């Protein structure tokens, strides 16, 4: 199948029909039934199109997805270089490498510590299928085509259970894909008293990666989450993430995308109990015809919950960015605080930002604010810097970096990773060349 071909839901369902006997858990009737259900529903629903509200600003998905096939990249990590150093080496850190939608290396190599259990799909299905069932069953009922696709053709998943510990383990998951379809799933539970840092690097060179993440944070837990989306030329990366936060749980995520393909991350957060807090920070540096999309929905469901979202983008050439941020404050959520801001720097007249912040408030006693701004590099500031001897390119970079720094500096997710500056500098080198 060539890149030009329109990819339809049927292409995926055909692939499912051909592969289903070889998929993990094919011998488990409940799982086979769920997959069957998902495939059938996917066929009815079709792939996301611009006609669907959630995808309105991210059109032409069908034309972007090229090969509908699995790629066998060999189940060995290709020794990718992250450019990022692990922080404090005294901390328990675990690296998980994925290749083309499967966890590379023998699953048994994943560590099992008293407070940390990490299992692959096959291991979990063999040892503890009940743990996998609820989330997969929920996906079978999903109205998200990507969730259905993920379930139907899921080949591997990472299940992480974290208990109470003094240390804050660092989990580093790196996904590489060389093309084709990579459906992955990450399911994480933090039990009371747990704290962790999770770094996800997604580096697809081409093809479609379809990531699905569910995270449950029990009372008093904390998760710092960093998502670094790759720089693949033609890659399409779609991620959907669902989180539930208990009492006084803290979740912070920092998202970066600097690729030239299409990346969409949907983030759904339920703040279910008092004191739950979420922070979403992100930055996009896009050039060429890159398309970045952040779609978030934060539900304040209990009193005294808070959320902040700060998203910054720098767009050059014909790049396009979508920001759809929605905050819902439910009737019982007194004294809740939800803030959301999206600021964009447009370096080219052809670049485009579609920003759609939305507040739905069903309680009087709350504080909510959202703001969206977009503008060009400040000519005055540029001249000021040049008049002090900074070459034009340096001056531009300094201003871009200063614009972006707000998103990285305040990001709790980056607190114990020495990566803040690097994240920006690496991208800056590629912009404006």
């Amino acid at each position, binding site marked *: 199948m060539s890149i030009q071909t329109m990819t339809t839901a049927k292409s995926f369902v055909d692939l499912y029909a051909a592969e289903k006997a070889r998929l993990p858990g094919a011998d488990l009737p409940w799982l086979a039934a769920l997959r069957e259900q998902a495939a059938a529903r996917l066929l009815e629903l079709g792939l996301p199109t611009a006609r669907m509200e959630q995808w309105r600003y991210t059109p032409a998905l069908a034309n972007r997805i090229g090969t509908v096939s699995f790629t066998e990249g060999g189940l060995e990590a290709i020794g990718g270089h992250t450019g990022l150093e692990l922080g404090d080496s005294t901390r328990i850190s675990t690296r998980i490498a994925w290749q083309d939608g499967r966890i590379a290396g023998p699953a048994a190599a994943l560590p099992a510590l008293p407070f940390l259990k990490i299992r692959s799909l096959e291991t979990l299905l063999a040892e503890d299928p009940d743990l996998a069932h609820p989330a997969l069953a929920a996906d079978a009922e999903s109205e998200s085509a990507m969730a259905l696709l993920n379930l139907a053709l899921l080949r591997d998943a990472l299940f992480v259970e974290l208990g109470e510990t003094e240390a804050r383990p660092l989990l580093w998951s790196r996904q590489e894909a060389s093309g084709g379809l990579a459906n992955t799933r990450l399911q994480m539970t933090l039990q009371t008293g747990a704290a962790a840092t999770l770094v996800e690097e997604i580096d697809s060179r081409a093809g479609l990666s379809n990531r699905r993440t569910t995270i449950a944070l029990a009372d008093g837990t904390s998760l710092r989450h960093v998502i670094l989306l790759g720089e693949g030329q033609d890659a399409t990366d779609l991620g959907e993430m669902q989180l539930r936060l208990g009492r006084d749980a803290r979740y912070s995520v920092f998202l970066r995308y600097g690729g030239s393909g299409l990346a969409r991350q949907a983030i759904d957060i339920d703040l279910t109990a008092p004191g739950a807090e979420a922070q979403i920070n992100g930055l996009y540096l896009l050039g060429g015809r890159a398309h970045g999309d952040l779609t978030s929905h934060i539900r304040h469901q209990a009193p005294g919950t808070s959320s902040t979202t700060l998203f910054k983008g720098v767009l050059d050439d014909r790049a396009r960015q979508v920001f759809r941020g929605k905050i819902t404050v439910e009737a019982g959520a007194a004294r809740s605080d939800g803030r959301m801001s999206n600021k964009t720097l447009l370096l080219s007249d052809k670049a485009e930002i579609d920003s759609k912040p939305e507040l739905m408030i069903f309680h009087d006693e709350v504080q909510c604010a959202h703001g969206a701004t977009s503008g060009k590099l*400040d*000519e*005055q*500031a540029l*001249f*000021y*810097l*040049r*008049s*002090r*001897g*900074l*070459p*034009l390119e*340096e*001056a531009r970079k*300094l*201003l871009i*970096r*200063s*614009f972006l*720094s*707000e998103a990285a500096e305040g990001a709790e997710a980056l607190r114990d990773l020495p990566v803040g500056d690097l994240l920006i500098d690496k991208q800056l080198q590629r912009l404006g060349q």
Partner: protein
Amino acid sequence: MLEIENLQVAVEGKEILKGLSLKLPAGEVHAIMGPNGSGKSTLSYVLAGRDGYEVTQGRVLFKGEDLLEMEPEKRAAAGVFLAFQYPVEIPGVANTTFLKEAANAVRMARGEEPHDALRFVKLLRAKTKELGMSDEMLKRPVNSGFSGGEKKRNEMLQMAMLEPSLAILDETDSGLDIDALKTVSDAVNAMRAENRTFLVITHYQRLLNHIVPDQIHVLAGGRIVRSGGQELAAELEARGYADILSAAA
């Protein structure tokens, strides 16, 4: 050092400078006085290389080279420094970072070694103190939330760090109280040197009591209408611009 010959400049099609000529020898301090809107800032921007100023006639030689051909950063490297009348705020960039990048950019362009980190900090601290600025202002973003006076001092700090051979001070005195005026003037006087020229633009004689210029020029209607010594400042102070302008007309 600087030779301006018959300079004519238009902004958005409107003629602002209408044949301005001026010679600034090395080591001298010249002052330009003139009413509001006479083109003083326009002149300083043209010399620093800001976009949007169309030179329709004339030329400017700086150390014998065509200044108007150079990009702003080239001019800075060649030794031109403009203290802005309205310094620009740059949120997100720490003052120290900015000063260091700027100082090292011009040093490298001049074929000098960049400052090593320790030496730079020492030098910066010393200059900061001389200008009556607090170290805290070095950590803050460039000019962000600075008072008018603090911004002007920060301009002087940049001048001190960049060691220009031609320093243009565009109304650096406005917004300074008497004590600050004295501090800033002292800092400028300390930088006076044989190979350094100052062009001090001001509205008031006050500054020129502290920074005594070699020559004073009156700019009006886009031209230098009179030049003279310190007595010219006194005359302006006593009689105002109107009188001098009508006499010159």
